[in-house]
């Protein structure tokens, strides 16, 4: 069938990035409240970040276990309501609320029908000031968490992540973000109550409220509900992450694995760094989106993998780059070869101007997409606040992206994406893949 050749329509005139106004208030108790009006559907999105990093040294792993169980049991009761009551009340409000801990913070995320916002905030206040950690429930959740950890650790991606973090961070608290079962088993309800009293504190915490409610009203409601959240504790600063240097690849044995899970980890510039925009574009060209070289090579040309991806993230103690691909076992060495080639290329050979422009347009366009829903906007405001940045940083970043040159990308690639700067971890069947990998790289077996 021959179709007439048709012209690809040109893009219309781009609209400027809309960055909504954020109301920024710090309450007397130290809690910072960020509020944005976004109408859309009659809902309100909430994100609360409480600094919660683990201490350095021997207390670190125990903290990770406590933080994990604390987030799992926070909704198990307060002075006034038991677990069932809390769950039913949340449901009645059209409310969702989840609590999770990571290496930096305890995070509360949820949403509620606008009509339920005052009652939702009251419930949140109870969790922050009078969580009960009842013994029976804590013990039950503790057993459940131990079983869940076994399930997590049976997946190759989790094995790879744990090995990578341990290798990148050594004795720094970031080396472990999933607790050990034995540390979880040692946690008592009293330890959770004590941790809650010491670390769930308003000073340093940020609450983001986005939705179909005026910022002044949202802030007043928060103030009314949370002004009684008082605590003498002070936030713990996570120490700077260690300098990252490339390490010999680690191969972790997973018998019978039909794929090898490949991860590369390294340092990355902070969002405020002068070379951040260039690095984010270098990362895109390498493997940060579908139209990247890595995807074109090991997926669309060679079919070694389904979804290779490289991304930057920004934990408070130091930004990082993590790139990963799960490749068929029999092509593990060829896939590593091509991956090292693409990393080497972005670090040593200038990108084509069109590749740069394409990545730039993607980076600029997706800035608008990330803020185009209540949940997306709330996440963006909250994440940036976690790095000490205002939402208007998006505008500065857009301006910085506009200015990046081919030379800037080469420099950023050499500094952050060079294979010698990265730490590779592979999880797969050692008996099948080790020999051929040794033709390319030295290996440490784990």
């Amino acid at each position, binding site marked *: 069938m021959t179709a007439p050749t048709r012209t690809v329509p040109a893009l219309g005139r781009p609209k400027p990035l809309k960055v909504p106004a954020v109301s920024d208030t710090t309450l007397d108790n130290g809690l910072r409240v960020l509020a944005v009006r976004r109408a859309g*559907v009659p809902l309100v999105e909430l994100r609360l970040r409480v600094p919660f990093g683990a201490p350095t040294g021997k207390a670190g792993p125990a903290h990770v276990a406590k933080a994990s169980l604390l987030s799992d049991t926070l909704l198990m009761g307060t002075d006034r309501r038991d677990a069932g009551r809390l769950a039913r009340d949340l449901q009645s409000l059209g409310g969702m609320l989840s609590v999770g801990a990571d290496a930096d913070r305890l995070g509360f995320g949820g949403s509620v029908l606008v009509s339920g916002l005052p009652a939702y905030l009251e419930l949140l206040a109870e969790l922050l000031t009078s969580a009960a950690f009842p013994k029976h429930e804590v013990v039950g959740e503790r057993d459940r968490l131990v079983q869940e950890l076994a399930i997590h650790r*049976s997946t190759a991606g989790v094995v790879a992540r744990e090995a990578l973090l341990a290798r990148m961070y050594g004795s720094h608290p970031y080396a472990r973000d999933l607790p050990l079962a034995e540390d979880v088993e040692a946690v008592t309800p009293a330890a959770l109550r004590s941790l809650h009293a010491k670390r769930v504190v308003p000073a340093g915490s940020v609450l983001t409220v986005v939705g179909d409610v005026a910022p002044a009203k949202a802030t007043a409601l928060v103030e009314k509900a949370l002004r009684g959240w008082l605590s003498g504790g002070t936030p713990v600063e996570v120490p700077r992450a260690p300098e990252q240097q490339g390490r010999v690849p680690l191969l972790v044995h997973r018998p019978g694995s039909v794929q090898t899970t490949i991860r590369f980890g390294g340092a990355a510039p902070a969002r405020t760094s002068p070379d951040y925009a260039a690095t984010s574009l270098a990362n895109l060209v390498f493997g940060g989106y579908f139209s990247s070289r890595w995807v074109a090579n090991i997926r669309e040309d060679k079919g070694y993998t389904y979804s290779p991806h490289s991304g930057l993230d920004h934990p408070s103690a130091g930004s990082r780059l993590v790139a990963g691909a799960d490749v068929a076992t029999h092509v593990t060495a060829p896939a590593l070869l091509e991956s090292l080639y693409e990393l080497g290329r972005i670090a040593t050979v200038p990108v084509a101007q069109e590749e740069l422009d394409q990545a730039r347009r993607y980076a600029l366009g997706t800035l608008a997409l990330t803020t185009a829903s209540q949940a997306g906007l709330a996440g963006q405001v909250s994440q940036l606040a976690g790095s000490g940045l205002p939402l208007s940083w998006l505008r500065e970043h857009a301006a910085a992206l506009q200015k990046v040159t081919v030379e800037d990308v080469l420099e950023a690639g050499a500094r952050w994406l060079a294979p010698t700067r990265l730490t590779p971890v592979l999880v797969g069947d050692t008996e099948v893949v080790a020999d051929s990998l040794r033709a390319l790289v030295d290996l440490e077996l784990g």
Partner: protein
Amino acid sequence: MPTKTPPRAARAAFTIERGRLDNGLRVVILPDTASPVVAVAVYYDVGMRSEPEGRTGFAHLFEHLMFQGSANLGKTEHFTYVQGSGGVLNGSTHVDYTNYYEVLPSNATELALFLEADRMRSVALTQENLENQVAVVQNEIRVNVQNRPYGGFPWISMPPVLFDSFANSHDGYGSFVDLEAATLADAQQFFDRYYAPGNAVLAVAGDVDPAQVMTWVEEQFGDIPGRTLPKRPSFAEPGLTEERWGVVDDRLAPAPAVALAWRTPDPADLASYLPYYVLVEVLTDGDAARLQDRLLLRDRTATSVGGYLGVMGDPLDARDPTPLMVEVHHAPEVGVRTIVDAVDEELDRLATDGCDTDEVRRTVARMTARYLRDVDPVLGRATHAAVFEQQRDRAELLDDLPALLAQVTPDQVVAAAATLRRDNRAVLELRPGGAA
């Protein structure tokens, strides 16, 4: 009579416009200027159920091929144009439909329509691209199923227990043998048969002028010739008359799991179907739900409890026949029978003792909130509107759903629970083989 309508605040009110081209393409437009972005989604009325015997996984493989080149575009150009205009894109294959979508800055609306029209016009296939995508799909199956504990449980492993016909029971990801047997001729035939404009719905949501969109749609899609549509076959098969019990061994899983499935009424009949939607949430939505309360909080026999409608967990996008599923992960020392018996007891209790208005009202409140959250992003709105229009001729369900959910009564939920019996259900037991 108390009013059944929810408070005005808990409703959606979107502007919905629609059109239809002479070639049969149906168009739904949802203008919204809140952000300078647009979502474009095309739904083809063909999914895993329609793939031929000996070609398991073909609908999904074909979805991959739709990104490999079309009338005026070479391999990877579809991605390059969308991402190079600042957009994101994907496609997905379901039991009853295959969709393609992109979300972009709204100045790329016409481009997105061109791109979707170009591959509706014709798909450009080469043997090399076919073989490449077979390898990619095999790696997708490895990462999501073969190399992952609980991979494909229960969405791939339950249908052969619950259903008999090839259409309803086969593995929609496909066997490696079938995938490797796929030919270019198969692909062309599949395209000719199912990817006709009259078998598709196009939805556009976001910062657009509907009249302008319709003009562009006419320009880009209007000259794609209409084709005779395949008559959509009935996939109906008789329900179960005795319990079925299947077992799947998972060498990677460290702990056992069990799934239970019952058939629901035909989703086309919303009045009969929606009580099952409320029922599954009464049973499994969060710690206030009956099975969570029983298995997680009281008995402490389970590590996780979930429940949903549809093989793939989407309640409002499947046709008949379709299941209500409950999935429970539990500790090795808890026997599967203990879990199944507890589920039975809870169903009996609901069917016998009933439930009160408050339980249904609070369950519906959260369902409504979750639904509104899903349709707040332009993509969620476009995809819901497209599937509602395709399967029900009713894009307006986007606005109507909260009120319909609010009309479900406790009696209807109880009556639905009474139909989930021991003798008409399928049980799938997952036996772990991994080191705990």
